[in-house]
């Protein structure tokens, strides 16, 4: 299986909101779409899903145009969407039936996911003292986090081949964030194709091998995350010493990115400069507690690439 997004563009009036976006997934895994608010991530996802017409380009799944009605796609939108006044069980069943899941399988999967996501008490309330069997809760009776769990359930009920998740962790507490992460890991292990959009860079680094950073509809950086980082080199240096090292930093003309009372966060020109700096500290008997030379984080790359443009403008 493969997903190819080829030169897709979208205009609203004269405004180009997605400009010639292309990427490929030739194997299972997680692809990340990053960008500032209004960068065109959600529009791109909607185009991939076939929900929104594009002005140009194509989206191919196994070499054929992707049609979400015919391909088993699961979608978790950024803005949650549930019927507030209908019972949870009714609407989950409806979403599953729309994906052509038969009733029995749908019910089995609802039970499985309700249990897995710990929302059994809302979807299948236990019998009380009264004679009447209790009705499934309505969406407006749930907290935001629990609504999000129901939403994730509806995305997974069809056991999708392609899963598109837009800001999956927004509004979740740490426990539920971990729960969602574990479910995403399970889906990765099941060799699913996942496209994820998020503002949480550590999460992207945790899951994604390939990324595209969008800014105002245009691609700023694209490719394998490890290679992108490698291309920057190990130029970020975190140093913690017992003594004051300001004079060494000035002497070697190192760029201070951030300084806290105990640590320096520096930018070096390369590994040689870092080694020179460390040798000087050791020779002068400075007590080095921490000396960490590493590649820039995704957050730093993002801020550098997108932030620079924004600052200029």
């Amino acid at each position, binding site marked *: 299986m493969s997903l190819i997004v080829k030169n897709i563009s979208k205009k609203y009036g004269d405004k180009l909101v997605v400009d010639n976006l292309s990427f490929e997934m030739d194997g299972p895994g997680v692809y990340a779409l990053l960008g500032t608010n209004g960068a065109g991530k959600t529009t791109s996802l909607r185009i991939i899903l076939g929900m929104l017409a594009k002005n140009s380009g194509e989206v191919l799944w196994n070499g054929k145009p992707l049609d979400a009605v015919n391909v088993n796609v699961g979608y978790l939108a950024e*803005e949650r*969407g549930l019927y507030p006044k209908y019972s949870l069980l*009714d609407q989950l069943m409806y979403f599953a039936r729309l994906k052509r899941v038969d009733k029995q399988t749908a019910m089995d999967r609802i039970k499985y996911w309700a249990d897995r996501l710990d929302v059994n008490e809302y979807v299948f309330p236990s019998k009380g003292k009264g004679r009447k069997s209790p009705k499934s809760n309505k969406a407006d009776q749930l907290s935001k986090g629990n609504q999000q769990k129901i939403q994730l359930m509806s995305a997974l009920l069809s056991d999708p081949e392609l899963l598109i998740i837009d800001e999956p962790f927004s509004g979740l507490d740490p426990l539920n964030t971990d729960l969602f992460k574990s479910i995403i890991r399970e889906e990765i292990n099941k060799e699913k194709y996942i496209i994820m959009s998020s503002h949480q860079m550590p999460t992207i680094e945790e899951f994604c091998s390939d990324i595209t950073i969008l800014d105002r509809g245009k691609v700023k950086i694209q490719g394998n995350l490890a290679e992108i980082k490698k291309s920057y080199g190990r130029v970020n240096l975190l140093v913690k010493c017992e003594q004051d090292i300001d004079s060494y930093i000035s002497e070697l003309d190192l760029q201070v990115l951030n300084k806290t009372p105990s640590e320096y966060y520096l930018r070096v020109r390369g590994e040689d400069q870092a080694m020179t700096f460390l040798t000087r500290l050791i020779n002068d008997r400075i007590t080095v507690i921490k000396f960490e030379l590493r590649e820039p984080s995704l957050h730093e790359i993002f801020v550098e690439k997108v932030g620079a443009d924004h600052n200029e403008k």
Partner: protein
Amino acid sequence: MKNNLSGWKNVYSFTLNQVLKGKAYRISFFIMALLFLASLPVASMLLFNNTGNGDDTSPIKKVYVNNMTSLEISFEDVKSMSPFKHIMFETVKGDYNFLVNHVSEKERTSVILDISEENGAYILHLSMAKDGPVKDIHIQSLGDALSKSFTNRRMASLGIGSEQLSMIQTPVEYKTTMTDNAGAEVIEESTAISFSEYWFAYGVLFFVMMGTVLTGSQVATSIVTEKSNRVVEYLLTSVKPLALMLGKVLAMMTSTLIQMLSLVAALFASNMISSLYTADGGTLLSQLLPDDMFANINIINFIICVILVFMGLLFYAVLAAVAGATVSKLEELNEGLTLFTLSTLVGAYVGIGAIRTLMGSGMNAYVIFSLLFPLSSPFILPGAIQVGRASPLIICIAVVLLAAFIVLLFRFAARIYEVLFLHTGNTIKLKQLFKISKDSV
């Protein structure tokens, strides 16, 4: 096209199920059905029990007669009627004003009858105590009896018998006969409808309009709600917008048709029950309406009417669906529904005008136009069929025209729906709709 409509059945069954389960639907349906069921029996009771059928005794005990004419009057024939046989008639003597006060304050079961003559006509004037036991209906009943007695007496004094009187009162009719060039008679039947038929057609029009407005507003509300709570984004990953619209429109139409047919059945049952309260055991409608009024109501005509109503609901529901998709918030729905409301009003008023024209001058070009015009035909045609004023040819042309309009509207909706469904922001105007449609061709 098949792919575009795939999944509509799931949308249909879910939407219908949720509407039928809704408390608002159930309560309003129960109240309406109860009102329809009770309406005719209650009307029967009020009409036939209060007017009396000859056995109820009048609460009037005494009538003071102030005869200001030269006539010698006897009330024996009034006293021979069972409701009035206990009444005492007494000619006024003494102070009239004192008598008026006496009846108003003390003798409240008595009434005063003034008989006067003016310009050759006799006037009977009855006065009663305000808020006393004697009511308007009792006065009217006594007045009718006195008037009849008075007329009989006058006729008798002129030597006219009851048969002669009946002959005098028979209306004179005139008839115009036209002949063609060969001298053969040309028979031209009147196509005008009676007053009763007018009200019947008017009622059907109003009933269909209610259904149309109900369906339209339900469809539009449902679409805007799904847009505003973002459910539509999830739905569109499984079904195309057109399938979503079709499923929704048909579900809302089904719920409305269930209501409408149930109410017709309730009215039918109500009419049957009303026979328990009428004087001769007939149903209320058979008593109030002419015998030939329902001559055209049969199963075929009824089915044709149901099909027409269905098509009308479909046409207006698709219009409402497009209107609903042009807005993204519930509070903007009224603005978005302007086109739908205007179209409904135009259709209904053209229909009402045609019904009035039918009553006044029968079939003419305007009536035929309104029977064929797709905005008005769903409203007027069912009534016109039931009163026998729509020929099979007119029905066929109207159905074809309406079907063509529905297809055109569907194609238009299909072109713009995809854009409209995910539209958030200001209400889209008609001009923009045509632009979207043009751009998507």
